[in-house]
């Protein structure tokens, strides 16, 4: 068999080399994902798996907003095609999903990839491929490294900012309270802890507890916090674990004050976990921070509710809906600003220009040397089942917390950005 096999192998190898063009990089002049009448973008989201219950509705809301924009003529005459890939909150799956989006679907940009561990897995890859990586759905500081990752931009207020603002409000409300923190054992929890420490002083947190996403209950953590006499519990937890923490404490007949980071404090989502009858009682007075316009009855919420009813089959309207649509709005604004013939470079330049205003209650802070979205947050409180801003707004910079006035962006042109 020796000779025929070797000959066959040589022939095969030669044939393979002849096909080299299939895999050779470069040589294509057109902009990936952009045609005369469409712009194709992609994202990775936890549609199934442990994080699905809290976050799977975000991409549906974004898609509904894009459908609304497309129905009204698109952006600069182009419709937006939004490809959503499920990664089940598993970094290994994110790798596959994003590579497929970039190499097979040839997307123009990745928008709003969700999760710190998941998106970390593709950060270097996207940077190396030169794909704009816009509005990452996570408050890790990792996304704000313009020197290293020049195409990556954060969307959430970072966790340190949120932790500091929560602690500042807690201290102002009740100067002598015993402050404790329960955090996720990753960048999220660490960021919140760091933020709280900038206000109360390092090593001044009475009790710090952590959990991992794979854990099944929080009894040990909350038992320790109860034993330490905690009065204000700052939570750096995702929605499911916020509900679990509040529920577990209630089972222990312990009712401390809850100060929760925005990623785990969406009232309608928490009510879904705790039950409609118990949620208003257990979550009464829960303090959180946010930066998006989700005040009930506000003009943005009215618009988003209409879009949700018409383009999202009237899915339950939650903070995730506002989040998803706000991301969509910001992307459309960036795309409109990227010009009639957008390129990956002009899109990134549009975000870095500092001209984008978004729809937040505080100013966007994007610039050439700052890839963070929001450096200020407003405090929200749950009262009788309604979560709304109370007016207190804090800006956090260089380890200092300062009170500022909120500056909400008015709704213009029926929520469709133009030039």
């Amino acid at each position, binding site marked *: *068999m*020796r000779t025929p*096999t*070797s000959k066959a*192998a040589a022939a*095969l*190898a030669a*044939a*393979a*080399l002849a*096909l*080299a063009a*299939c*895999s*050779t*990089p*470069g040589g294509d002049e057109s902009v990936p994902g952009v045609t005369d009448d469409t712009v194709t973008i992609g994202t990775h989201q936890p*549609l*199934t*798996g442990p994080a*699905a219950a809290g976050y799977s509705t975000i991409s549906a809301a974004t898609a509904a907003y894009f459908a609304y924009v497309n129905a009204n003529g698109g952006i600069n005459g182009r419709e937006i095609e939004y490809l959503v890939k*499920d990664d*089940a*909150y*598993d*970094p*290994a799956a994110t*790798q*596959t999903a994003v*590579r*497929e989006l970039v*190499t*097979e679907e040839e997307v123009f940009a990745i928008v709003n990839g969700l999760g*710190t*561990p998941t998106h*970390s*897995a593709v950060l*270097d*890859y996207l940077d*190396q*491929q030169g794909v704009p990586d816009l509005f990452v759905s996570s408050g890790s500081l990792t996304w704000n490294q313009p020197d290293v990752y020049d195409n990556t931009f954060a969307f959430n207020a970072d966790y340190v900012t949120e932790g500091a603002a929560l602690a500042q409000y807690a201290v102002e409300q009740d100067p002598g309270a015993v402050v404790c923190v329960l955090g996720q*054992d*990753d*960048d999220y929890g660490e960021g919140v802890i760091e933020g709280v420490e900038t206000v109360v002083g390092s090593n001044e947190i009475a009790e710090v507890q952590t959990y*991992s*996403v*794979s854990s099944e209950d929080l009894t040990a953590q909350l038992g320790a916090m109860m034993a330490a006499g905690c009065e204000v519990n700052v939570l750096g937890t995702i929605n499911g674990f916020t509900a679990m923490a509040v529920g577990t404490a209630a089972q222990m007949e312990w009712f401390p004050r809850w100060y929760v980071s925005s990623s785990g404090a969406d009232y309608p989502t928490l009510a879904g976990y705790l039950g409609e009858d118990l949620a208003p009682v257990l979550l009464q007075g829960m303090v959180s921070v946010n930066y998006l316009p989700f005040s009930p009855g506000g003009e943005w919420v009215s618009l988003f509710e209409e879009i949700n009813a018409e383009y999202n089959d009237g899915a339950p309207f939650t903070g995730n809906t506002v989040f998803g649509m706000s991301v969509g709005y910001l992307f459309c604004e960036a795309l409109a600003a990227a010009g009639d013939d957008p390129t990956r470079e002009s899109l990134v330049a549009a975000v870095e220009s500092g001209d984008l205003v978004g729809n937040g209650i505080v100013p966007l802070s994007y610039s050439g040397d700052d890839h963070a979205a929001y450096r200020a947050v407003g405090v929200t409180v749950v009262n009788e089942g309604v979560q709304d801003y109370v007016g207190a707004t804090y800006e956090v910079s260089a380890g200092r917390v300062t009170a500022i006035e909120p500056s909400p962006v008015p709704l213009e042109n029926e929520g469709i950005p133009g030039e």
Partner: protein
Amino acid sequence: MSTPLRALLLTVLAIGGTFGLDPFRNYQLATAAACFAAVAGLTVLVGLTGQLSLGHAVLMAAGGYGFASAASAVDGPWPVALLAGLVAAAAASGALGLLLGAAAARLRGPYLAGLTLALVIALPAAANTLPLGGDQGVRAPFLPVPEPLAALIAVEQWHAWLAIATAAVAVTPLVMLRNGRAGLRMRAVLDDETASRLSGVDPGPVKAGAFAASAVPAGLGGAALAIATQQVTPGGYGLGFSLLLVVAAVAGGLGSIGGAAIGAVLVTVLPWGLDELAALAPDGLGRRLDGNLAVLLFGAGLIALTTAWPGGAARLLDRLRAARPLRLATPSTTTER
């Protein structure tokens, strides 16, 4: 043809094959090569010594963590970092394999399966307790395409090359081991432990050694995966993945290296293909089933496959080369119960 020569030929052929694939397929090929190394280790372990391990994903993870930490620590040109990483991967997985092997020599059948299963379940907790970066895992260095090749190939293709080469380095010694004296000893132990002891082959060291010998390729597979994905997380080496490796070994045919290659490609491509298929299902049916539609199809396909070819893909290979005078494939072996 001698084994190293055959391995070299196949490696060159596989590397040539990457030119025919687009970047995403090359990424999948790199993943399949990584799985191939692990499945080859597993199939030899189960097929030749009858020790059923459900925990080979953990051995892969050990290799991945070893690779990531060593390759990141080395401050030098990329070949040095790569080499250091591979050595560390082999060392980490080999050490863990030896430890497991020591226990395996004293356990049989379901007890060993239970022990290795527990290891997989313990991995997330271990990653949180040991300095392994928790759920977020550790980053492995990104190996860019070397300058002279940069104009010719994409990064996915380069990573596929590295993964294929790593798999070759991992599997070739395993094949030589299997075809040599050690393989004979393993078969002797599998057939009858008392008889093998009577003829001077102590089953304990043979079983422990086989476990370690099967762990090293798995660890190198983990390193290959870390090269392709630049990250090692406990989530990537969960129970599902570990069982998928067993599926690959069974679908390929226990004890057969060629079957392991087929099985590895199968478990890499099939879930992806089924996801695509499930996405075609009407109006979010897949979403309502919470991602279980693809799993369902996969299970059904697997049952059909094992019913149609109980011996796995290796039997098909055997049939194809039935006319050949020299048989390199192992005799049919079964797992002990």
